[in-house]
């Protein structure tokens, strides 16, 4: 993700670790009294199995357009000032940041609701897949029957 891409789109994919401070700063606004954010971190366990690390793969073209759609829907449904989402792709270690959502709004109801909407819809619709490596030597693509609870 380059700075230019970040400034022209609300949803981005990043194949390297990214800084949160500039993403948050881009949402600062004198009209906004509330800011809600969500981060997904790589956990050391999943469904009872010890996880060593994971890889995210995306269908980038469709992920970017579907992600933008999710953000546009959030801006339309909730009284927010602005919102952004960045999702990592590639190899991630335990504890690494996998996804970040930030929303600014006049009031906290809208900030929380939009933030929740964006992470829920991103997990449910945006073509990104998680490949987990387990401590027992196995590795698997996650293709949940229903959107993941994490």
């Amino acid at each position, binding site marked *: 993700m380059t700075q230019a891409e970040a400034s022209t789109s609300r949803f981005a994919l990043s194949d390297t670790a990214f800084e949160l401070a500039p993403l948050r700063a881009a949402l600062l606004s004198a009209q906004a009294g509330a800011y809600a954010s969500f981060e*997904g971190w790589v956990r050391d366990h999943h469904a009872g199995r010890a996880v060593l690390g994971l890889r*995210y*793969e*995306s*269908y980038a*073209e*469709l*992920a970017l*357009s*579907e992600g933008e759609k999710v953000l546009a829907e959030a801006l339309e449904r909730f009284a927010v000032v602005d919102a952004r989402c960045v*999702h990592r792709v590639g190899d991630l270690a335990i504890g690494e940041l*996998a*996804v970040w959502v930030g929303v600014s709004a006049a009031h906290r109801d809208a900030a929380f609701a939009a933030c929740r909407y964006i*992470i829920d819809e*991103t*997990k*449910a*619709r*945006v*073509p*990104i*897949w*998680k*490949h987990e490596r387990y401590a027992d030597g196995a590795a698997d*693509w*996650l*293709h*949940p*029957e229903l959107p*993941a609870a*994490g």
Partner: protein
Amino acid sequence: MSRLTVLYFASLRDAAGTASESVEADARDLRGLYEILRERHGFVLPVERLRVAVDGAFARWDEAPRAGSEVAFIPPVSGG
């Protein structure tokens, strides 16, 4: 018969052994195309659990395969 490109992701790519291939699509619709490729590559996922995209946009399973298009079968996503 129409030649088009198929993209595979995640477990479908592992099963197909390739991220994309050029195929002769002699199927009436995209559902039929998937069933042919499922049999060829031994995909586990049934069509009901997938979505399909054409040229980078979600599409309907009953659309006819178009020559020169890029078709992607989208397994259940697990981002976040």
